[in-house]
């Protein structure tokens, strides 16, 4: 069973704001996501160390220290609630017992903080996608697939209320497309391979969530859009290329909601505002507080439409102020306080703060510009006007290029000279692609060295 969106939940850009989603929902401790408050979402990870049977005690000690520290600070600062994300590292998904040891540590600490300080919290569980540990990746069976499903299932049973993943389907061809500046390869990876894998994967995740009465939250095209963003940030690929890739990632991430996910979409999905416009579900976002994990050109703008505000990930190292995750928690809470004051004042103030977030970043980078709320609605419209992910991807790609071209022409966006020719190159590439995705798939299968990807794992026959 899957929905195909044909209309927008938010078609008025002034309604695409932080803190409010047309389809909010309530977590067990009473936190309402998308219901008028923005909550901090904290994520943390290990300092340099090995994860194996012999070090698991130490690993657990690190996580206990991190969760206790962040919850204590959240209680001291009287945060109205906290979302905790546990994004596993590969061995923790490969050995679900190890992953579960940590899940239980987190849940126990969250329970205790509630009992002691009345702090509301919920756990988002994000098993990492290990399916590409074998090359070519095996997407639909095997030990990595099994381990991942087991960890979803057991963590949901234990009390994780939101299920997420950064899935990798299609990435095995997309990485090269990025470094080659190949828009056709990017669209193929995202909307043909990626969308097919998403449908398969999210049908399973939604089923697990239903079984345990928890929420299938959402995915992110991190390995696609954020890889592009990091490469652009390092001046390896053009920013306009990364911006167009970002627009196309929304097509892939949308599939989770079509399969029954309800948000909040995962923090590092910078494409989430487009998905909020389409689905009306709450979304998590990250920006300036995530520079502990990677840089971005939209530290403020990313907050414009968020319902939870995240730090992506931070290592447990000591800083002058205290441990890094605790520092990160504090930063997120202050950002949320500001947004929540605006929400308390009313729609006009919300819009004013939102527009300041936007105006502080949008003219400086095409990747930021493309995610202005008005552009997001335009891109969302382009996506739902088409019937299949592939046709939607090509259309949204062209729409994004038009938006950038227009913005450059009217001087609301500054593009450097060496970026400009890429707009035409991308347009030509997208226009020349075959109309039928099966024709493209056969072309790709015929020209890709065997062993790079397995067509059958994506339901394609060669």
């Amino acid at each position, binding site marked *: 069973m899957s929905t195909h969106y044909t209309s927008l939940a938010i078609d008025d850009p002034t309604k695409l704001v932080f803190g409010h989603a047309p389809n909010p929902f309530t977590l067990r401790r009473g936190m309402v996501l998308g219901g008028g408050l923005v909550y901090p979402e904290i994520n943390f990870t*290990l300092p340099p160390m090995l994860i194996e049977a012999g070090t698991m005690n130490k690993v657990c000690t690190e996580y206990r220290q991190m969760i206790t520290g962040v919850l204590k600070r959240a209680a001291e600062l009287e945060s109205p609630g906290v979302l905790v994300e546990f994004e596993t590292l*590969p061995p923790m998904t490969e050995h679900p017992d190890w992953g579960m040891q940590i899940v239980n540590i987190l849940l126990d600490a969250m329970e205790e903080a509630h009992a002691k300080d009345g702090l509301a919290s919920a756990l988002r569980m994000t098993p990492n996608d290990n399916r590409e540990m074998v090359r070519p990746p095996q997407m639909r069976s095997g030990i990595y697939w099994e381990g991942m499903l087991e960890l979803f299932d057991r963590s949901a049973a234990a009390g994780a209320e939101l299920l997420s993943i950064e899935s990798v389907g299609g990435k095995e061809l997309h990485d090269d497309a990025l470094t*080659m*500046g190949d828009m056709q390869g990017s669209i193929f990876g995202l909307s043909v391979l990626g969308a097919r894998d998403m449908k398969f994967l999210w049908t399973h995740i939604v089923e697990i969530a239903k079984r345990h009465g928890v929420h299938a939250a959402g995915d992110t095209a991190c390995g696609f859009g954020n890889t592009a963003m990091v490469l652009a940030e390092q001046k390896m690929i053009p920013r306009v290329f990364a911006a167009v890739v970002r627009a196309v990632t929304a097509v892939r991430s949308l599939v989770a909601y079509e399969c029954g996910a309800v948000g909040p979409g995962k923090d590092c999905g910078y494409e989430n505002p487009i998905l909020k416009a389409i689905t009306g579900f709450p979304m998590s976002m990250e920006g300036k507080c995530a520079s502990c994990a990677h840089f971005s050109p939209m530290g403020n703008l990313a907050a414009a439409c968020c319902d939870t505000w995240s730090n992506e990930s931070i290592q447990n190292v000591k800083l002058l102020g205290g441990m890094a995750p605790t520092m990160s928690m504090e930063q997120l809470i202050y950002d949320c306080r500001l947004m929540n004051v605006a929400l308390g004042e009313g729609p006009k103030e919300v819009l004013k703060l939102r527009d300041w977030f936007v105006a502080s970043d949008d003219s400086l980078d095409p990747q930021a510009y493309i995610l202005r709320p008005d552009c997001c609605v335009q891109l969302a419209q382009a996506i739902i006007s088409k019937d299949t992910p592939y046709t939607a991807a090509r259309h949204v790609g062209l729409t994004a290029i038009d938006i950038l071209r227009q913005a450059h022409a009217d001087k609301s966006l500054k593009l450097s000279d060496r970026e400009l020719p890429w707009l035409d190159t991308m347009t030509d590439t997208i226009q020349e692609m075959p109309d039928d995705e099966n024709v493209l798939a056969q072309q790709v299968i015929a020209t890709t060295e065997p062993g790079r990807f397995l067509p059958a794992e994506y339901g394609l026959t060669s």
Partner: protein
Amino acid sequence: MANLNALTEFIKSGNRSKATKLTQEALDAGEVPQGILDAMVVGMDVVGERFKCNEIFVPEMLIAARAMKEAMAILEPALVKTGYKPIATAVIGTVQGDLHDIGKNLVSMMWKGASFNVVDLGVNVPAEKFVAAIKEHNATLVGLSALLTTTMPAMQTVMDAIRAEDFVGVKVLIGGAPITQNYADQIGADAFAADAASAVDAARKLLAN
């Protein structure tokens, strides 16, 4: 006389068909293979330099690398006949448990452009595989990449395995976002390089010692 300056230019602009055609012409005209190779390497060095100065993007650099690769395929048999040995054979890979490879691939490409013979072992590579490859290919340069704080210790494992063998003159260069010179010192690696362009300079320096 074939125009080797033009070959340099065709590599720089990534013109595959002209670069391969000119390589063949140069060989037919009796140019010394080493001279033809040098003309290509000069071209790639310029491309690397332009990239370092933010004048071009990776896709443009890769186009040049492809032109060089195809021209090399024509040149190689003649080079080998002259007893030519590449400056070095390098083994490179992302360490066990880690799947990040974009950075590693760029380093690998730059090394090829500097006319090293590069054996790329891919991702998630266990220590034994590095050691076996060094032996098999008589490598003198090893590149290790890690992007996760939790796979950095796997670099130590590879270093231990390499040092346990009595390889002569094998230099190890490491890199990846969380890696620092300090960490290289700590695990006994020969050097650290922060990006793909400086990985060429660092490798040349190591090999010269």
